[in-house]
């Protein structure tokens, strides 16, 4: 049976600790999101970049912070802490917004989405391809966090204010990260 994954909300979660991580700060400029992501990923060893998959996943976190957190307000900053080795990637992204208010709703949505996928119920599944809110625009895929939860196998954690996300991925055999059970 497939493990049920969800986004955790916990200020005290170890993934939110910034010790030993490097720091970068960016303006909320949507045009430069991929460039900012590349600046972060350039410090990762090539073995874990998986061509551009690591960059893509980090880019989604920064894009969410710019677009949904800071509402494209260029005066607001996105702060990124990251650490990489051959075995892991650990990234924290914080914005200056009011937080992802619908996070609990997202977790419920994702649970139902997973049920449809497990049952291969394609017709019902179409309702759960994209999580949209009143703030979503036509360029929002609404699917980034679904992929994030799969990719970041060491956990996806938000602070209680929900404006800061921490993620962890294991690449080696040694497992570290968030235990959900």
């Amino acid at each position: 049976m497939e493990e049920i994954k969800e986004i955790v909300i916990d200020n005290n979660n170890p993934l939110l600790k910034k010790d030993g991580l490097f720091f970068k700060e960016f303006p909320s400029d949507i045009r430069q999101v991929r460039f900012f992501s590349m600046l972060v990923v350039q410090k990762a060893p090539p073995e874990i970049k998986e061509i551009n998959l690591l960059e893509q996943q980090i880019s989604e976190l920064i894009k969410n912070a710019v677009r949904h957190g800071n509402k494209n307000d260029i005066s607001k900053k996105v702060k990124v802490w990251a650490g990489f080795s051959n075995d892991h990637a650990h990234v924290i992204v914080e914005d200056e917004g009011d937080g992802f208010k619908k996070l609990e709703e997202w977790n419920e949505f994702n649970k139902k989405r997973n049920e449809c996928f497990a049952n291969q119920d394609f017709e019902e599944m179409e309702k759960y391809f994209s999580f949209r809110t009143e703030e979503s625009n036509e360029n929002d895929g609404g699917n980034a966090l679904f992929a994030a939860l799969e990719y970041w196998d060491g956990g996806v954690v938000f602070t209680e204010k929900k404006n800061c996300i921490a993620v962890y991925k294991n690449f080696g055999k040694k497992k570290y990260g968030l235990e959900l059970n």
Partner: protein
Amino acid sequence: MEIKLKKYSSVYIIEVIGDMDLYSAFELKDVVTKMLAKGIEKYVLDLENVEYIDSSGIGVLIHVYSTIKKAGYKLKIANVHGSVEKVIRLTKLTHYFPIVSSLKEAVALLER
């Protein structure tokens, strides 16, 4: 991102070249919308030259496929590879999208 159109018999091949990301993915949606308005019924999306896709690109693929399907027309997606294939897998949509391994197979299936 660049889009090239080719016609093979009654099948239109849409070749996407470059990244399908937040800056460019909408271009594909615009092209398909115009083709649908012209009543084109059979589509192949060739992703051989796409090395990068993000959530906006996945959103466009979902939109394009569901719109073509709702119109009663047909789509096949060919040459999905590398990180594009991995991102589709991460979103669990591999079995939803009509993915085939080659252009030849896509055209043959649509010409039936």
